């Protein structure tokens, strides 16, 4: 029996899931053994959350409800961590504050 988890999160960052956030998002996804997928609609299409090419191609702007699902070892943790990253606006504002 393998674990699975699913969640949705609203993208609040001003330009959405763009280049630098996608790097962070896919890097974080790759740190989990579970298969992780994302979609911009509940009925898909689902794409590999560990592929930056696929995640970028989803072109999710601000206001998108991002669907995240995972299956396998650490599925729960993977979904939790990715939701958390999106909710923190990918730590982008913190980076910008520092460059002031």
């Amino acid at each position, binding site marked *: 029996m393998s674990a699975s988890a699913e969640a949705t999160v609203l993208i609040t960052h001003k330009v*959405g899931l763009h280049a630098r956030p996608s790097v962070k998002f896919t890097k974080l996804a790759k740190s989990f053994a579970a298969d992780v997928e994302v979609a911009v609609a509940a009925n898909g299409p689902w794409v590999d959350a560990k592929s930056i090419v696929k995640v970028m191609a989803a072109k999710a702007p601000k206001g998108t409800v991002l669907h995240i699902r995972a299956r396998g070892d650490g599925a729960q943790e993977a979904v939790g961590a990715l939701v958390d990253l999106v909710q923190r606006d990918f730590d982008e504002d913190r980076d910008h504050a520092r460059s002031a």
Partner: protein
Amino acid sequence: MRIDGVPASPGYAEGPLFELDRPPVAYRRKASPAGEEAALKAAIGKAVRRLTSLTDAADADAAGILEFHIAMLQDDALSGPAIAAIGSGEPADAAWRQALDAEIAGYEASDQDYFRARAADLRDIRDQVLRALSEDSEDAAPPGAILYGTDIPPTRFLETDWSKGGGIALKAGSTASHVAMLARSRGVPMVVGLGDLADKPAGVALLDAEHGGIVLSPSPAEIEAFHQSSSSFAVQQGKAQTFLIQPAVTKAGTPVRVRVNIAYPSDVDGIDIATCDGVGLMRTEFLFGKALPDEETQYHAYRRVLEWAGEKPVTIRTVDAGGDKPVPGFTVEETNPFLGLRGIRLSLARRDIFRVQIRALLRAAIHGNLKVMFPMIATAEEYSQAAALFAEEQAALAARGVAHRLPPLGIMVEVPSVAIAPEAFANVAFFSIGSNDLTQYVMAAARDNGAVAPLNSVHHPAVLRLIASVAAFGREKGIPVSLCGDAGGDPAAIPALLEAGLRDLSVAPPQLATAKAAIADVSV
């Protein structure tokens, strides 16, 4: 026939000339789909390596873009369609172009400005790999070749295998270029400013980067003379190497501390910390190369060097922009930049930018033995103001609970006012004599102007007297005095500097051995 140039990195090389200035070649098809696939993967790998080497010296914004490009290139989903097309008979370049063009079209069709703009990134990614693919079809420089051209890009230098010897001969170029610095730190012989060679160069050439010149179509007598000079240079270098690992001591047994000057964090990679007494000068201008760096970028750059040095001191100089080192968005245009708003003057005028560097330094200080010095100090007020900013930022970090430490704060002695009246600075933690600027200001002779080069001499009694008086003041007040200009690594200047009372020199890393050897010959 010998052509004279300017030595940029000492040494000798003998080998075929390899022309750098040749038109780009077209991609050459491989014999099989497997060959095409291997060529594409190699080209992607090459593009990734190139971008990774650029990330090292990039500021945070540029690094963010580069990281994005690298992540895209490393994702098999990007090359998947191209590899499928290769499988059905397409050549690698066409397959890659079609696959990326399809991806680009997807971005161009977006109704979001932001995602539409990413089409440009995809085009860049596409072209980087196409470039690597066609370069793969170029004739590679044979091992040990002398690369010859108008100028050479840093990536080309980094990609070249120098383990079989070889060198660089440039028609233009500069001894201050990034490649010249890289060549010196790797010990690759390099000569610049050769001008256009009349002959069409062919066959073996002799590069004399000790004196600055190249011999084309050498006669037997020229080859003989070249071998004599190169072997005596090698003997001299070899002799110096035996001094490298030992602490520097004069003939009379007086210990001298010898540290290194670095311009990039990666400069320390090739240095064994056991061979030096720490970093006497870490420049920070590299961080300000293209744009203003953020605090994290600076913090990581400083921390890297501090951790390398362990317990040995690392003296970091706050940004010395201005003068001949303009930074967009920071420096101002001036008619006489060497006497204008540069060094600490500029930092105090642009405190928002200075404070970012101060915070990064305070945070990095916990990772080693940091000392910080201010460039171009002319008055005690400038030092007090800069020190007060450190105190303010320290209090702010403490209030936020951020780990930090206040490092000892010292000054560069390079403006004559400080060297003439050092008593105003009895409260600084240390002095570091910047002999290049001190000499040019005392002699009123620019150091980048060949016409007044003979005037620009640290050996002039006026310069040496100032150095001696600063050293004496430091001894009297218990303030450490070091020297970090080019003179510190010059075997011809070292005796005079030690006689002037200095016991702490900072030199370019490749000069460590020769400087220690020169110190051993002095009888103070």
